[in-house]
Each structure stands twice: as C-alpha cells, then as structure tokens.
C-alpha cells in the first residue's frame, strides 16, 4: 500500500507534530528493544546462531532454483498446488481465480506483509469477496480504514479509547476502553468469521524445501484458525522465503521471536504440509502456494541482494532513530523502517525512494540488531549513489556533493576551499555553529547545523608541529 498524495517531507512533518503518535512510538519501540536485548542477553548461543542463519540464507540464495524445485515437488507430492506470479497483479489474479472457481465469498486472513504488498484486500473487495483481517491489530486498522504502522504491531498508533470508539461504532454496542474487554469483543466477532469463511489466506514466514512445509509464526492463533477451518487455504509467499531443511528451520525459530518480541518462541509456530490428509478430521480440501517474484528476482544479482535475507522481524524499525520519530505511515509504502526503504526500492524501483534513501542517519544500529546481520547502511549508501548516478536526485544536491567530492580528494583544492569557507561562513556563524545558509544550501541547514571551518585547519597545525 502506498500513500503518495503527499511528499515524504510533509508526511514526516505531520508525524513529528503528532504528540500522541510520538509518545506511542517511543513506548512501543523502547519496550520491544528492551525485550529483545534481554532475550539475547540470556541466550549466549544467539550470536553464533545469527551467523548460522545468515549463512543459511546466503547458501539458499546461491542454489535458489534447486531449493524451489524441491519445494514445489514436495508441496505437490502432498496434494498442494503451486502457482507462480512474476508481478503483484498476477499474484492477485491467481487468488481471485481460486476464489471464483471455488465460489468463495468470505475470506479470513492472518497477518501477511506479502498480501499487503500486493494490495490484495482491495482486489478481493472489488471482485465482491469480503476479506476479514484476523490479527487483532490488523482487524483494528481494517475497521478504521487505515494502514499498518509497524510490521509486527500494526495498530500501535491507536489508543485504547480510539479502539473502543471504533468497535462501538462498527460492531454496535458500547465498549469500555479496556484492552481485555476489547480483545474479548474481537474474539467473539472473529470466531464466527473463522467458522463461516470459505477461504483462509496467509503469508509464510518460511517454506521448508525438503518437506514441502509452509511455516507460520503467530501469537494470537489466527494463523492456525485460518489454516484449519475454511475449506480453501491460499498462502502468498515471496520466493526468497524458502529454506532447505527442518534443521535450518530450528536455527531461524531460535532467533526470530527473540528479535521481534523478545519471546523465546512465539505462542504458535504452525507447520503445514498439504491440505487435509487421509484420516484427518479437519483441514482444508485445497491448499495453494503462490510463489511471488514482484521485483525480487532481479536483486539476486543486484545491489539489494542482502535484503532478500530479511525475516520481517521488525527489530530494525524499533532501533532506528528515524523510525522512532516518524513511525511507519510517514514512509508511505507497505514496508517501513530501514529495511522498508530497501524493500520498497526492490519492489518499486530506486526512484520511488529518492527521498526515503536519505531518511537514515547511517548510524548502523539496524545492522547491529538484524538477526541475519543485513548490512542495511551499506545498501542505503549504494542506493544514494545510484540515485545520483541516474540523475534522480535534485540537481542542486548533485552539484554540491559533486563539488565537495572533488575538493575532498585534492589536497590543494581542499586548502583553497578551507580558506574560502573560513571567510564566506562569517555571516552565518552563530553560537559557534553554521546556521541558515542562503540559496539551496539552506535545505541542508533548515534541519541541521554545521561546525564552522576552523581558524587553523588540522593540516596547517600539523605543519607547525613538524617544524617544531
């Protein structure tokens, strides 16, 4: 989903002025961070497991075609159907065609970023099929016609009072602003939807090639409901989610929940292999797995290759000084935060992140917490360079940085630059900082200041020392 009626600058400014949002973000991200830190603090083997997880992801990518072939063969061997979608539109069409063929009218969904990415709900509604989000946070924002603001806590921007008003209005009744009460309301409302639904739609956290198993990780149990009760199960998955074996799966399970919520394991990890098997009382009649490309394949040999390792845990959001200030909505696309910028560039092209690529201080905190150690800052720098090379960045910015580059690599130009700067900066130095530069330089100093050029530069002082 994208909100592009406004610029990133406007959305960010709006978020910064929203005092409740800032407070909610601060509480949520601080809490997640603390839980994560404690979880890994009590888990000394965690660091080695992160290295192993990273190398499993890399090894899998190096043989991606073979692993996908195994996955497909094993899903089919257990009675599942596999579909292939090069684009988001194609993925939507596959789902709509299954719904049409099976006469599905009511769809229950467990939380899935892949289906957000392809804007599946709008397509289903358009085709006369009713999609119901069943993750509590997603349910709240669906009722409110809003968008998720955090990968794993989609409704952190709403107060319990707002949720109570929303439920009262949409579901009829008068509900107290108490999370316990509101959760019970949602339980009752959604339980009936699970039982009535024709189709369940999920994403997939992993798919195990050697067994043909789709893996779903949830805390609420909605993933289990959606894959147990309706007669059709459709899983939409980016094809990079495949991993080779059950042994590998255990490595990821050990670090995924710890990174996301600080739990040792989430309440439910559900391994699904095929539709209802002979002798079983429950389970869908049909299982469909949609393998989706949507821009991922071209990054196998691209600059964003490492972003294909991402587990969608959300840890890099919580730790990011930019995300912590502006929240998920300001990014404007399905995937927010540091990894979100890279994923957006992957799915929508580099030009779509010409502003977002700069929404990072490159502090490196995201790389430090990433369970598979994705080098997000390096890829952000690469993206910025690409935007410059392809002349997508504004000309003023390209000119200023082009000049700066030339000066930085030439000692004589650097010396001249320092001499000129020392004089030119005079009108703009206040309280020992350079502020409010004129012309387009002002874009830099509008939200930042600069240290002034020193009265004597380091190299000048070094020469003095040498003489002495």
């Amino acid at each position, binding site marked *: 989903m994208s909100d592009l009626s406004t610029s990133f600058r406007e959305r960010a400014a709006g978020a910064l002025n929203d005092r409740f949002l800032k407070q909610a973000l601060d509480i949520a991200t601080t809490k997640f961070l603390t839980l994560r830190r404690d979880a890994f603090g009590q888990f000394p083997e965690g660091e080695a497991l992160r290295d192993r997880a990273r190398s499993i992801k890399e090894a899998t990518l190096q043989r991606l075609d073979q692993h996908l072939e195994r996955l497909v063969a094993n899903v089919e061997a257990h009675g599942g159907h596999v579909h292939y979608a090069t684009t988001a539109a194609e993925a939507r069409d596959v789902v709509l065609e299954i719904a049409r063929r099976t006469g599905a009218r009511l769809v229950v969904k467990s939380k899935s970023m892949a289906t957000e990415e392809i804007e599946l709900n709008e397509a289903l509604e358009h085709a006369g099929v009713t999609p119901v989000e069943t993750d509590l946070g997603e349910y709240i924002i669906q009722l409110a016609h809003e968008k998720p603001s955090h990968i794993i*806590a989609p409704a952190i921007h709403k107060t319990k009072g707002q949720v109570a008003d929303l439920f009262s209005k949409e579901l009829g009744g008068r509900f107290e602003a108490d999370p316990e009460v509101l959760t019970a309301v949602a339980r009752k409302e959604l339980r009936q939807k699970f039982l009535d639904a024709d189709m369940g739609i999920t994403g997939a956290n992993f798919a195990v090639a050697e067994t043909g198993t789709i893996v779903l990780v949830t805390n*609420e149990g909605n993933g289990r409901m959606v894959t147990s009760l309706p007669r059709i199960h459709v899983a939409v998955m980016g094809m990079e989610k495949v991993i080779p074996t059950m042994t590998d799966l255990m490595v990821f399970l050990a670090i995924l929940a710890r990174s996301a919520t600080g739990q040792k394991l989430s309440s439910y990890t559900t391994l699904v292999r095929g539709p209802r098997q002979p002798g079983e009382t429950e389970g869908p009649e049909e299982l469909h797995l949609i393998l989706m490309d949507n821009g991922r394949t071209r990054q196998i040999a691209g600059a964003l290759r490492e972003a294909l390792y991402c587990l969608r845990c959300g840890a890099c959001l919580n730790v990011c000084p930019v995300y912590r200030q502006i929240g998920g909505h300001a990014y404007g696309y399905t995937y927010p935060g540091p990894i979100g910028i890279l994923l957006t560039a992957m799915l929508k092209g580099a030009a779509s992140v010409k502003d977002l690529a700069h929404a990072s201080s490159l502090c490196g905190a995201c790389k430090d917490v990433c369970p598979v150690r994705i080098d997000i800052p390096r890829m952000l720098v690469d993206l910025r360079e690409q935007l410059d090379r392809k002349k997508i960045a504004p000309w003023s910015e390209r000119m200023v940085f082009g000049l700066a580059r030339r000066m930085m690599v030439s000692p004589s130009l650097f010396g001249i630059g320092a001499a000129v700067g020392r004089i030119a900066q005079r009108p703009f130095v206040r309280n020992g900082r350079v502020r409010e530069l004129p012309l387009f330089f002002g874009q830099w100093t509008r939200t930042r200041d600069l240290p002034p050029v020193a009265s004597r530069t380091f190299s000048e002082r070094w020469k003095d020392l040498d003489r002495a």
Partner: protein
Amino acid sequence: MTTRAEFLGDIRREMAKTSGLFETRPVPRPADAGQAAEVVRRQMLERWPQALERFREEFERVAGVFHRVARLDEVPEVIGRIGRERGATGILSWHPGALGVDLRQSLGREGFSVAIAPDADPDAGERESHRTAAATADIGVTGVDWALAETGTLVLVSGRGRPRSTSLLPATHVAVFGRDRLVESLEQVGIMLEALHVDPARTMSGAVINFITGPSRTADIELTLTRGVHGPKEVHAIFVEER
C-alpha cells in the same frame, strides 16, 4: 500466467550473473535422521528429570499451568477439577488411542459432556459433527509428541484421532504427557522432525505440526498483554510419572 519453467528460468538467468559471492559452509544435518533421533531418545532416558524441571520452569514462565500425577488413571480427576473450577460443561478429547486414556466414563459420570475425536477415516457428516463439538467445547484434551524444555513448548502432530483444533478452539487446553516425550532443545526437535519426515509411517499422520508455547496472546492494543485472543486463554500440562 507465469509457468514454473518461466519463473525458474528468470531466477536462473539472474543467478548466472552473480559473482564473487562469499563462500558458505553447508549446515550440518544428520546423515541418518532415524539413528540421530535414536541417540536423542537414549540421552533423554537419563536426562529427563532435569529436562522436566526446565520444562516446568519455562512453561510456567509463559503462563502455563503444570500438574504432576503418578498414574495415568489419575488424569481424569485433574481434568475434572480444572473443569469444575471453570464451570465447564463440554470436553473434547483426542481419541483414546492417541491420548492413552478414555475420558468418557470417568468424566461422563461427573456430568461433563465428553466428545471423542474419530479415529477411523471420518466422512463428511462426522467431520461436521466434530467441528460443532470442537466449536462448543470448553476444554480440549490432547497428547503431546514432544515437550520442549528450553522454551516450555508443547509440540503436537495432527493426524488420525488427533485433530488440530482440539488445542485451539476450546478456551482451555489440557495436554497430557510422559517422560518419553521430553526433549531439551530446539536442535533436538529438529532431529526428531528430520526423522519424522523420512519415516514411511509418517504418511499416516496429518498435515499440521504445532509448536504451542503458552496460551494465545496479543499486545496489539497499547502493548497491554492480553491472553486468549483467538486460541485458548489457558494451557495446562499434566505430567504422568508412570511409564
């Protein structure tokens, strides 16, 4: 529509362009999964008491309620007590063949309505009536395939006589297990799952394996932890000492 050949063709074309990738060591995986699983079982013959202690500690940390009985025939009594304390009327259980104990007589006498999952291939009618029983039961009673100590997790494999929703739809889930179900680590569970999938008898089991770590929970409203959003509000584990 994209075909399998086109989809994989696109991927292979991009893979051919990659160069200078860092070398990765293949992740060690048991060469003979059945044998590796046997080694774990033998280790646990000695180490189960420590594993049980750890399981209890971790299970209680995720809000599980732990019970311990000497004999299997004491299990109905514990379930009856849990039921009475919660004003429960309907109990749904895995088939006695999968659970190891038949609750119909004992708990039926106490006034509970006890439904048992079918273990023969159920027809559409039986499946429908089971679904109704599952949706209305207050307590669901299951066995356990592995009790994972380091996380307090119950691992349940679905299949004949062991429906996946018994541990999901009722507000209270009660799981019954013995010492031979205990494992220490996720790594050991990985070995057991590798062995399960190469076992030809696995074709007899169902489609779903669930790792259950405490009750259903959410923190989606103002990060306030709330239990029982879709699945059970309570999870009980009854450990049976006799072998």
